């Protein structure tokens, strides 16, 4: 790309390609305006109802646009790529955003409903750009757009001191990691003269792994490792998960994970695969492989072991997310189309289970009007809220990887992709992953046992849970079961989007 630019830039085409993103941004404006302009005097309940309706309609509209008017192609120097695969991921993001809005229904942590929903929708816009770009400039901007939204969402409960504290830690570590990521990008730019992933890959192909390239790789991994909360960049996760208002936590744990992992894989496999260049990317081991192996192993071990000793459900989910990040890195390590397919399946089903688990906690909070944080708080829940308890059971068993559920097949695909092919990850890492999944069973079952066997506090009446939230949770639980019983629905879709046999 030169300063003279190219003549054939078609803005109409850009407009058509970005229609879904524009639709979501417009929905955000609509939710904000309607709430601020017309519903100032209305009750919280009405405002939630209208706002959620608008948000869900917007997400549905964007999904329709994705499917009715698919605009495949690329725009300007890898700036925007639209293909069937990005469509799969974008659809997942939109569905998760709609679920987040529905689960926030009737939440009491804020009275700024319009702003809250607008931030969620803008964050979704950012993620949709994030997964559709192969240019570091747009990747960086949309990553920051996502991060800023998440800091805001984490701090949204102003009456809670923990919320601000979690947001502050998230923000400070996030700023630090953004600086590292930028330094990595600048070194890559210095080495190759480009910020386009494909061109960077071409330029570093066949070059030895110079110290400068190695530092660039490590710094880039640092930046993205923070986003996916892999050890040693995970320090923000427990506090942000615990402090954030529960629906925000659901969003941080699900949607942003999907987008971050997809872009992480994209950067590593499209942009930096030729790191140690010995020919085409599918038969060389990338220079970053040892770094990712170390990060993955540490994440699995530390995440799962730390989860065992947690007493807060949210912190437990945070550390288990660190462990899951370790497993998912195996999909990147595999460096194959099968690895990517397994990774996308895993991260989507993981996100469903995580958003569900947080959703149950949010529903309990709204139903009891008190915070539910410690595991003993859940004692005897099955007698007070049988439906929610059953949903929670499904989510936790899926996270643990129990056979008929989606989590099991996610692990199965991921581990077999990591072992298959010439580029197989180290065997010991897969063995470690399996061992750690077995350990994770212990702490998940500890919570489930508390729900089903624990004795409730005296005279705890049945809970009143909003019907919308219950229905949403049932739908998510159903999705987890269906995607587990018929994994081909999703795997086949991802595979055909990637033109896999």
């Amino acid at each position, binding site marked *: 790309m030169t*300063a003279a*630019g190219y003549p054939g830039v078609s803005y109409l085409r850009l407009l058509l390609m970005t229609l879904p993103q524009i639709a979501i941004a417009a929905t955000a404006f609509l939710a904000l305006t309607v709430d601020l302009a017309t519903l100032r005097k209305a009750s919280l309940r009405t405002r939630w109802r209208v706002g959620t309706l608008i948000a869900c309609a917007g997400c549905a509209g964007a999904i329709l646009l994705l499917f009715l008017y698919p605009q495949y192609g690329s725009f*300007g120097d890898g700036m925007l790529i639209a293909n069937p695969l990005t469509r799969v991921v974008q659809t997942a993001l939109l569905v998760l955003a709609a679920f987040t809005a529905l689960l926030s229904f009737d939440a009491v942590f804020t009275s700024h409903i319009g*702003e809250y929903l607008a931030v969620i929708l*803008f964050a979704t816009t950012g993620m949709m750009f994030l997964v559709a770009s192969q240019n570091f400039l747009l990747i960086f901007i949309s990553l*920051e757009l996502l991060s800023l939204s998440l800091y805001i969402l984490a701090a949204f409960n102003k009456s809670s001191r923990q919320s601000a504290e979690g947001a502050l830690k998230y923000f400070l570590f996030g700023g630090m990691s953004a600086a590292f990521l930028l330094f990595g990008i600048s070194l890559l730019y210095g080495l190759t003269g480009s910020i386009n992933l494909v061109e960077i890959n071409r330029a570093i192909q066949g070059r030895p792994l110079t110290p400068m390239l190695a530092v660039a790789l490590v710094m880039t991994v640092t930046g993205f490792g923070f986003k996916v909360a892999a050890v040693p960049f995970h320090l923000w996760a427990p506090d942000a998960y615990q402090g954030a208002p529960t629906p925000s936590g659901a969003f941080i744990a699900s949607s942003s994970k999907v987008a971050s992992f997809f872009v992480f894989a994209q950067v590593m496999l499209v942009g930096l695969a030729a790191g140690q260049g010995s020919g085409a990317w599918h038969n060389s081991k990338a220079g970053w492989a040892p770094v990712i192996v170390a990060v993955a192993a540490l994440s699995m071990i530390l995440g799962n072991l730390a989860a065992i000793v947690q007493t807060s459900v949210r912190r437990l989910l945070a550390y288990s997310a660190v462990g899951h990040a370790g497993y998912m890195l195996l999909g990147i390590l595999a460096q194959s189309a099968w690895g990517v397919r397994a990774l996308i399946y895993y991260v989507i089903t993981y996100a469903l289970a995580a958003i569900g688990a947080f959703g149950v906690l949010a529903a309990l909070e709204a139903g009891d009007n008190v915070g539910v944080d410690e595991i003993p708080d859940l004692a005897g829940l099955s007698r007070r809220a049988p439906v929610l308890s059953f949903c929670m059971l499904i989510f936790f068993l899926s996270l643990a990887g129990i056979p008929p559920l989606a989590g099991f097949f996610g692990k199965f695909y991921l581990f077999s992709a990591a072992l298959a092919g010439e580029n197989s990850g180290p065997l010991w890492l897969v063995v470690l992953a399996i061992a750690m999944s077995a350990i994770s069973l212990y702490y998940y079952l500890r919570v489930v046992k508390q729900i089903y066997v624990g004795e409730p506090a005296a005279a705890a009446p049945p809970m009143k849970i909003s019907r919308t939230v219950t229905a949403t949770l049932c739908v998510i639980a159903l999705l987890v079961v269906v995607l587990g019983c018929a994994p081909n629905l999703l795997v086949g879709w991802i595979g055909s989007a990637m033109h896999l046999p």
Partner: protein
Amino acid sequence: MYLALFIFFAVLCVAGALNLLLQRHPINSALSLIVVMTSLAVLYLLLGAQFLAAVQVIVYSGAIMVLFTFVIMLLNAGREEHTRGSRAAFLVGFPGAAVLLALLVQIFLSARGHLAQARLGEYVTATHTLSSVLFRDLLLPFEVTSVLILIAILGAVALARKEP
């Protein structure tokens, strides 16, 4: 002449940064960061980035740092006290940063052979070159940035507003 200018402002930068590191009152740190940013603007000028030099002064040392000083005044932040955390941070912070510094300097100096020499006025980027790229080829990131700023405004207002 060029070398002298570079050395003068580079030293000013490092001195400002060190002052930021060593001062115990946030307002002093903020003011030394302004020194760093303004010297960087001169260095950008030496590298032929006219427009960036102007933006660096206006946006960075102007707008952003004013925001910082304003918040420091608003919160009436005082000198920081010694806490149990500070000793541990000292023990981790200095060696960590020193290792990073040694590594980066080593890399850059060893890459010297591949890097060019800068002469004064050699490669000057005119603002119109920059703007034609920015508004034509990079229209999309530019538009996404507008959403980013909107989010920042929205968030700042929602968070900083006092609840009734």
